[in-house]
């Protein structure tokens, strides 16, 4: 056990491990690229949907069921399914990651919108604000903390799951996990797993710090 951790330490800090096209630096960049792009696409789909459901109050049933459906959908199965349908392309990775992120963003956006005090919305309408003004100048700013929480949650899950890209022969930090498993090289597997965990935790901490800084002036 001790030997293993010593080797893991050596693996993580050795210079040659960090450079080159299969070095940690490159794999980390790939991993972040998959994760950020997938989260952006998911946000582009989910934010308007969540805002619309929250603003109109219609389709709440859809939002809630979408969430539990999303939780039940096995990501590995989805990746393999899209892979078999589309062949060797980035589609399986992005479809699975986007499908994972959309429910988290929709439900949190919706939750944020419904938490806005109806009196405030009434007051805004009473002042003669149009629906889009109410949405963008009143509801959206008030719902923003919860929307941010949803985005953060989605990004963390996506970063954690982007390991799966390596399963269908692409890069990212998952490469070490799957190559290590194939080569029975436990140090490499653990190295990859630790890196993914560190990236996920670091992003979570960074985003929550950003969130706190942005909403510093808000009462809790």
């Amino acid at each position, binding site marked *: 056990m001790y030997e293993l951790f010593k080797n893991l330490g050596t693996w993580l800090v050795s210079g040659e491990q960090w450079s080159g096209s299969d070095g940690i630096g490159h794999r980390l960049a790939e991993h972040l690229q998959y994760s950020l792009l997938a989260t952006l696409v998911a946000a582009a789909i989910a934010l308007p949907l969540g805002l619309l459901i929250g603003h109109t109050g219609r389709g709440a049933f859809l939002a809630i069921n979408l969430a539990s459906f999303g*939780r039940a959908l*096995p990501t*590995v199965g989805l990746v393999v*399914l899209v892979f078999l349908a589309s062949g060797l392309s980035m589609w399986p990775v992005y479809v699975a990651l986007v499908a994972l992120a959309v429910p988290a963003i929709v439900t949190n956006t919706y939750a944020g919108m419904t938490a806005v005090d109806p009196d405030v919305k009434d007051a805004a309408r009473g002042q003669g604000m149009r629906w889009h003004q109410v949405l963008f100048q009143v509801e959206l700013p008030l719902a923003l903390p919860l929307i941010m929480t949803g985005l953060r949650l989605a990004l963390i899950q996506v970063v954690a799951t982007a390991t799966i890209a390596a399963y269908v022969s692409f890069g990212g930090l998952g490469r070490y*996990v799957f190559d290590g498993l194939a080569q029975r090289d*436990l140090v490499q*597997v*653990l190295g990859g*797993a630790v890196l993914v965990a560190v990236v996920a935790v670091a992003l979570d901490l960074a985003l929550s710090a950003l969130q706190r800084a942005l909403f510093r002036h808000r009462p809790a």
Partner: protein
Amino acid sequence: MTIDWSWIGDHTDDLTTLTLSHLQAALSAVFFGLLISLPLAVVAHRIRPLRGLLLGLSNVLFTIPSIAVFVLLLPVSGLTRTTTVIGLTIYTLVVLLRNTVEGLDSVPAKTKEAAKAMGTRPFRTLLTVELPLALPVIMAGVRIATVMSISLVSVATYIGDGGLGQLFTDGFQRNYPTPVIVGVALTLLLALVADALLVALQYVLTPWTHRKQRAA
């Protein structure tokens, strides 16, 4: 991409075994998750300073990718069912712990005072007053944890377990979509049925939430 229906007919035994193994892994995880998080939640609820620490810790555990958790457990418990269950249990903790603490928080102070005034001891109050009243919120957590676990079991296919997840590996290696489609469908079905059963269980366990108001 077509479904080969005869494959399903030929493999009903395998499918049953895998489904049961899948369910067993998920349910064990929720069971152990409850076993760990109930006492922890009571502690977090009673002792304020520990609350942030325990909830924060479970949040950090949740950010670790599932595949990483399974892999990190390999030196401890190897390529076994134990690894699968420990990994899944860790994931259930964040939901179960948070919901149980919130459930205990939601019990009205007056109800607890009434129990105290009637001479009920703290531990008995917890068992017969607080936990039953917290049950709806706890059950909401149990439902999320169960559905999540059922979906996550398949990740354990990378460490040679994974119940229905094995169908994904099988279909992937043979470039054969039928097992994959069947695996996804059965996982969704299992989650749906488990969720519905838990809703029914909650209905039975909390009769006071839907009993008609009787005339005095």
